């Protein structure tokens, strides 16, 4: 186990609401660590619609998901939050009155005074194709991500999909796999043109097999895959021999471990009050799309408001008995100092 990271607040989710929470907490001198399962900030804005315009951010008539994310990153820079990407918070445990202990699937451990859940629609997880019996092979022969490339050395690898992940792993694994087949439903790719070109060169040189079709079944036993049955685009079925299969069908949002943290839930959302946006457990807050309350609107701007009010209560928890003076960034020299503008 790694060293324990001690902090004021752990924010779960680096989407727009999680990022703005860093700002509101930062103004009140609350130090934040931010954990996200994706490899970059932005949440849904990064994963689902980086290039799609958003029209309802106050004062920004139009902004893309990617641009909104980069502006928020710039806005929170003065508070220097620590990001932990590619980590999913798996456990949250109350430590008496002293706060919470959190752990991630990557082995990080935090001790934090408060927890802010800004997890949107839940954690992005790989889509698992509903092939009958696939569960029996998961982890042994079927992998939705590549954690250690070496595990695939000398294997007969079948990669399924036509996006950047499928193409990138085709190129990366080809040199170490015994054989590699790329299976896709059409002869067109939604991936970087350079990767597609390299893949086609490998295919023409006979170093990989590129086949058209969709997997309908798996053959093997005891979790060890022997072949995938494929329906070709001409309707004919055939088998592809393989002992490792990597399906890449993008990501989907699942509530994930949040459901196991002892919080009251309502239809996969976390009920909060509308004064502090606190959950049924004092010290655990929920903001943005993941919370619910009477009149809730799943809008980014609502999440921003929720972050501001949540921060007030966090200040009181961190500084019991201390009076919080309400200040404006336009006029307060102490806030301006924190922002690095005075």
């Amino acid at each position, binding site marked *: 186990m790694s060293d324990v990271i001690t902090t004021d607040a752990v924010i779960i989710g680096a989407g727009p609401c999680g990022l703005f929470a860093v700002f509101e907490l930062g103004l009140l001198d609350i130090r934040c660590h931010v954990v996200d399962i994706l490899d970059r900030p932005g949440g849904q804005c990064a994963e689902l*619609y980086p290039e*799609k315009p958003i029209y309802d951010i106050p004062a920004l008539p139009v902004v893309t998901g990617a641009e909104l994310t980069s502006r928020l990153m710039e806005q929170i820079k003065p508070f220097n939050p620590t990001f932990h990407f590619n980590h999913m918070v798996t456990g949250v445990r109350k430590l008496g009155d002293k706060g919470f202990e959190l752990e991630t699937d990557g082995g990080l451990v935090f001790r934090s005074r408060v927890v802010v859940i800004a997890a949107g629609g839940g954690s992005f997880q790989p889509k*698992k194709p509903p092939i009958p019996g696939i569960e029996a092979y998961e982890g042994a022969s079927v992998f939705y991500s590549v954690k250690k490339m070496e595990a695939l050395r000398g294997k007969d690898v079948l990669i399924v*999909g036509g996006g950047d992940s499928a193409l990138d792993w085709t190129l990366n694994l080809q040199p170490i796999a015994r054989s590699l087949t790329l299976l896709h*439903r059409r002869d*067109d790719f*939604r991936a970087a043109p350079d990767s597609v070109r390299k893949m086609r060169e490998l295919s023409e040189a006979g170093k990989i097999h590129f086949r058209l079709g969709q997997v*309908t079944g798996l053959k093997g036993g005891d979790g060890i895959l022997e072949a995938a049955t494929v329906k070709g685009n001409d309707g004919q079925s055939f088998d592809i021999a393989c002992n490792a299969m990597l399906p890449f069908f993008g990501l989907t949002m699942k509530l994930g471990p949040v459901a196991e943290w002892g919080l009251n839930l309502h239809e996969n959302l976390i009920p909060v009050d509308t004064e502090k946006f606190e959950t049924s457990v004092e010290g655990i807050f929920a903001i943005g799309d993941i919370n619910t309350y009477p009149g809730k609107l799943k809008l980014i701007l609502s999440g921003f408001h929720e972050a501001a009010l949540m921060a007030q209560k966090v200040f009181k928890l961190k500084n019991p008995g201390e009076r919080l003076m309400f200040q404006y960034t336009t006029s307060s020299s102490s806030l301006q100092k924190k922002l690095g503008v005075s």
Partner: protein
Amino acid sequence: MAKITFIQHSGAEQTVEGLPGMSVMEAAVKNMVPGIDADCGGACACATCHVYVEPDWVEKVGARNAMEEDMLDFAFDVRDNSRLSCQIKISDALDGLRVKVPEKQF
């Protein structure tokens, strides 16, 4: 107003009404039709509103657009009559439309 029927994998049918201009996905979500997840809320960015258009309707519904064709790479069991329901705009001409919902969106 157009009536749209969603046929579940089990065979159960649910007919809902949609206003012209709305997408078939929106009509489904508004009426809580099971199996239309629509993770991304209609941005053609997730492929979780996949439907199979019944054969007699394929022509009236029209062809997939290029972005939709790309997104269908992230759907499972894509067939010739596969569409993303967020990309089908409801019009009076689609009154009576019938679509099948896949067993699982993923």
